[in-house]
């Protein structure tokens, strides 16, 4: 078999190794997503993990793993010295930050530069400019990209907020200057709600971003959220990778995203795409980023912000374009120019993503914690799962509750919706609550099918929704009965079937790490 071995050598030699080793400064599904890209490119990856993650999937998925301290993010995933030391200790010449944690921290990107470790993302200067929502509003209005009316600087006194609210007209939105993910954000409908909302937004912003700067802008009622993926290399090439519509949100956080958007035609798509590229150029942007727009009912769009990182929902763009965005990030960071595929990029078919959070979709999306006692993924053509969990894992309350993402691709939107409903039903996660059923009810809603997807969709269409749990009483008890019987039947070694007692229970007082014991 020497011929095939020789062939493999040729392949390995012709594929230029872009970095020696990449440290992935994140956890859960996004860490694993990045490690997969590294593997595709033949680059070893290094995981970092905290106490809470010592049994987590990402730790064992990487080629190496470094423990970086206690569970609180400040003492581990947000601790710049520890991340840098882990990179040095393992000989990494690049760091991918994922999303969240240090991904949009300019001080971290700066530190990487000082340490001569490549930060796989934009420059600290671009992160600093765009990370400040107020500064970027000012900058983009300067290059004729439309922005939302509102404050162009923050204020410490309530009088300024009151005046700005008066000028913009209620309802208004309080936002954290350094924010994202719905944290530090409050809608205000009248003057008497303003002060408590500013107070709450400051508190949340301080906790989440260590910066309590908040500002006010006009609240665009019933908009769509449409964003453009951008890529920019270090040779002056900037391109967009089309749009994602992310209008389905609860608590200002996206839960269902899709591409393409049903709201824009090719002419508008070209105009918004060109503006997204303009935004990127104005900020001297490099690597992958996302330009977010709000799209109002009259068909006007406004620049919202740039997310200077890989987005949670990047897979929908990947499925409709065939681009591996993380591979592109790594190539760009290594100094390669954008490849020829971007000259003739097209959107093919329709992709939808559902985020699988550890939260109770039947009870206000309250975070849910517990042990994953069963885990099985859907499979089939056009079905992709980006997951950070596996059976036996503890889902705690230390971190963002996203566990996985389910993404489907089909020739049409209608088929993509049907495929997603099927895939959600086949995606079985037991032990913590999720919003699977809630999302299926959205996907089945006639307004969703009609493409009437606005950020107020859940509020307008789902508030009266009540799952009739009692109608499931008999089938639920029947299922429990079946397992009770199976559990009392002695299992013969090698016998087909299962006791359906979770292995984490059968193991009893054995210890897997320290986190599971009776």
């Amino acid at each position, binding site marked *: 078999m020497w011929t095939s071995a020789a062939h493999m050598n040729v392949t390995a030699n012709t594929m230029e190794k872009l970095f020696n080793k990449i440290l992935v400064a994140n956890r859960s599904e996004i860490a694993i997503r990045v490690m997969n890209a590294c593997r595709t490119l033949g680059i070893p990856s290094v995981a970092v993990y905290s106490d809470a993650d010592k049994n987590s999937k990402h730790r064992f998925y990487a080629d190496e793993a470094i423990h970086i301290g206690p569970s609180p993010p400040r003492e581990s995933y947000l601790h710049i010295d520890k991340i840098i030391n882990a990179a040095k200790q393992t000989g990494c010449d690049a760091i991918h930050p994922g999303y969240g944690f240090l991904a949009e921290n300019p001080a971290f990107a700066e530190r990487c530069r000082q340490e001569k470790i490549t930060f796989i993302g934009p420059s600290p200067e671009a992160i600093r400019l765009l990370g400040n929502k107020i500064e970027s509003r000012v900058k983009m209005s300067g290059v004729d990209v439309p922005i939302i009316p509102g404050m162009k600087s923050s204020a410490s006194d309530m009088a300024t907020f009151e005046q700005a609210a008066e000028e913009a007209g209620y309802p208004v939105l309080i936002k954290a200057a350094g924010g994202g993910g719905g944290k530090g954000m409050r809608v205000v409908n009248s003057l008497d709600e303003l002060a408590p909302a500013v107070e709450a937004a400051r508190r949340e912003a301080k906790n989440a971003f260590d910066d309590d700067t908040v500002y006010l802008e006009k609240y665009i009622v019933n908009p769509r959220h449409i964003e453009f993926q951008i890529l920019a290399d270090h040779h002056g090439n900037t391109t967009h990778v089309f749009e994602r519509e992310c209008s389905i949100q609860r608590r200002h956080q996206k839960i269902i995203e899709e591409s393409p958007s049903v709201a824009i035609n090719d002419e508008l798509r070209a105009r918004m795409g060109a503006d997204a590229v303009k935004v990127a150029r104005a900020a001297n942007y490099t690597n992958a980023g996302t330009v977010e727009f709000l799209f109002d009912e009259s068909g006007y769009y406004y620049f919202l912000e740039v997310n200077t990182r890989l987005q949670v929902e990047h897979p929908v763009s990947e499925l409709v374009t065939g681009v591996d965005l993380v591979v592109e990030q790594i190539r760009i960071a290594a100094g390669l120019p954008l490849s020829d595929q971007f000259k003739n990029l097209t959107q093919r078919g329709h992709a939808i993503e559902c985020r699988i959070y550890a939260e109770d979709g039947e009870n206000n999306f309250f975070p849910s914690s517990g042990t994953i006692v069963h885990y099985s993924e859907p499979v089939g053509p056009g079905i992709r799962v980006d997951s950070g969990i596996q059976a036996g894992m503890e889902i705690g309350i230390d971190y963002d509750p996203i566990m996985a993402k389910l993404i489907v691709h089909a020739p049409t939107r209608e088929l993509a919706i049907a495929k997603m409903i099927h895939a959600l039903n086949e995606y079985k996660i037991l032990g913590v609550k999720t919003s699977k059923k809630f999302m299926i009810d959205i996907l089945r809603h006639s307004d969703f099918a009609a493409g009437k997807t606005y950020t107020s969709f859940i509020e307008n269409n789902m508030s009266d929704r009540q799952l009739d749990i009692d109608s499931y009483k008999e089938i639920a008890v029947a299922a429990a*009965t079946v397992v009770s019987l199976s559990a009392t039947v002695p299992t013969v070694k090698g016998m087909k079937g299962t006791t359906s007692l979770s292995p984490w229970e059968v193991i009893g007082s054995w210890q897997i790490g320290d986190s599971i014991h009776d």
Partner: protein
Amino acid sequence: MTNYEFLFNGDVVASSVEKDGESLKVRLGEKEFEFHSAGNNLFSATINGARHQVAVVKHKGVYYIDIDSVLLEVQEASEVGFSGGAGDRGGEKDKVFAPMPGKIVKIMVEVGDEVEEKQPMVIVEAMKMENQVNSCAKGKVKAINFAPGDQVGTESPIIELELPVEETSR
């Protein structure tokens, strides 16, 4: 035929099951369900003539079930006890619990306050998000057991209420 008793959403439900060749026949009163094991905690169940994939696992006395993405929990009648949950815990309407472990950010009432059902009582922060916990009943605040900044679990009540007489004697 083996008989069981379970607790579902506050109701005690009796069932029986027997093996019928490769399938399991479960009977609840007049209703009958047929199950086939598909391995790995999965079963094919026939519900109203259609096949559904049901996932079910027993873990520490609780049966965790997924039927068409509806997530359900059933307890053995002998293993009944409270296991977390939101502010409302059925019988304990006079107590306000945290929906999940977290930090108390704000308490919006004082001892002696008259409160309405669904009135905001406490804000608990977990996973960087603030969650508002509302009262499950109309009543008077009897005791406040925590202060802002305290870490709270789901087992001890944050606030206790004195309910109007007709509510408590229900």
